């Protein structure tokens, strides 16, 4: 089993979509939300994904195809 901490960013047209719920049904991954905030212009969720590494990557790719921006929960590690 592997795990990955990610940040999902939702543009306004995606905020009402149950993307995380659907992800948990379509793929063998456990979605564990730790922090989130949504306002009128943008929503974000920090969550941990647990499952087989390949399944996690497939689920992330699917989320991106739905229009979700997926980044590391760490923020960027490349600095100036």
């Amino acid at each position, binding site marked *: 089993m592997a795990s990955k*901490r990610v*940040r999902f*960013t939702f*543009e306004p047209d995606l905020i009402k979509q149950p993307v995380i719920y659907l992800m948990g049904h379509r793929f063998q991954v456990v979605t564990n939300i*730790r*922090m989130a*905030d*949504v*306002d009128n*212009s*943008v*929503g*974000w969720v*920090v969550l*941990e994904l647990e499952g087989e590494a390949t399944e996690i990557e497939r689920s992330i790719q699917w989320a991106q195809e739905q229009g979700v*921006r997926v*980044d*590391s*929960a*760490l*923020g*960027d*590690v*490349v*600095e*100036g």
Partner: protein
Amino acid sequence: MSFEQALRCRECGREYSLAPIFSCEFCFGPLEVAYDYDGIREAVSRDSIARGPATLWRYEALLPCDPAYKVDIGTGFTPLIRADRLAKAIGLDTLWIKNDTTNPTWSFKDRVVSVAIARARQFGFQAMACASTGNLANSVSAHAAAAGMDAFVFIPDDLEAGKVVGSAVYAPTLVMVDGNYDDVNRLCTELAGTRPWAFVNINVRPYYAEGSRTLAYEVAEQLGWRAPQHVVAPMASGSLFTKIWKGFQEFEKVGLIDTPHTRMSGAQAAGCSPITTAFQHDTLNFVPQKPNTIARSLAIGNPADGYYALKVMEETHGGAEMATDDEIVAGVKLLAETEGIFAETAGGVTIACLQRLVASGAIRRDEETVAFITGGGLKTIEAVQGKLVEPLRVPPSTAAFDAALDARRAVAAGGA
């Protein structure tokens, strides 16, 4: 003596013992060092600090590491210069430049790396690591060399020559990653979780980030133990920006200055402006961006401290601006031509955004302002090459020189 007590989650407040960890296990919030401020207040005074070395180690009581482990290559206590010519050019009464281009590897990163490497040695690490678009790479390489430690330094493969050489000369294991910005991010995140290294901006980030507070300490001391009315600082991850504000607040907390009323304004490049864009949309929730700017040292599309930078702007009634690539180059030139300081592109961002903030009225003419210039221009000469006045080319004769000079002056007069 050091007074750090624990690591504390910035979101939920849970505390952890001092260790090479960086995020809360419960909410994944970032961890920050908590201090015994009463102890610091007892231990330091204006006089005791003034008697210290002319480096950032004069503030060692406020740093989260045992000074016995320090690697001191002369970082900090950089000049604070009254910038009257630049102030006049942009419409301010009083402007100061905090010139951090004079650090050992010519950028403010020497501050954060000084603290990170001291803490890493205290933890017993044998190797340092970082992922960087240049300045951090240079600083980690230099400090590791001075400490006799291994260094693993990851850089994009399209970096400016000055920044590549500025790391290679210290003989780290320098790794040019064949891939885009996201690829470098992904590789380094994976390596950080599996290698026994002190990855300065990952597993020792809570300590590393604290080094930036010394910028505020120095400015307050150099202004005669007070905080300025307005600060303009560049924003990449947002960490520097938040730590400057924290530094002023801490100096008040330990009795060294009166309550700071500084308004904090941030500067970003238009080609990578997630924090400024969120500010302009009046939200604390930034949307990550793909960087596309000549200001490579500020090109962080998913800023770890973006939310906290926005909170500081809100708390201090500050502002944020962004500058185009052309404005960045113009900012570099304006600073050089008015104050004799050659900044890298991040400095151009700061000056260009300062101009915008003054022009829009976000900074009043009578607000005493400090602009932070965080890196030296010789690292990014590509940005200004071909955009400067060409040298006069003359044969070796007085008559030829006079003729060329007259011609240049005639052109200048015609253009004026």
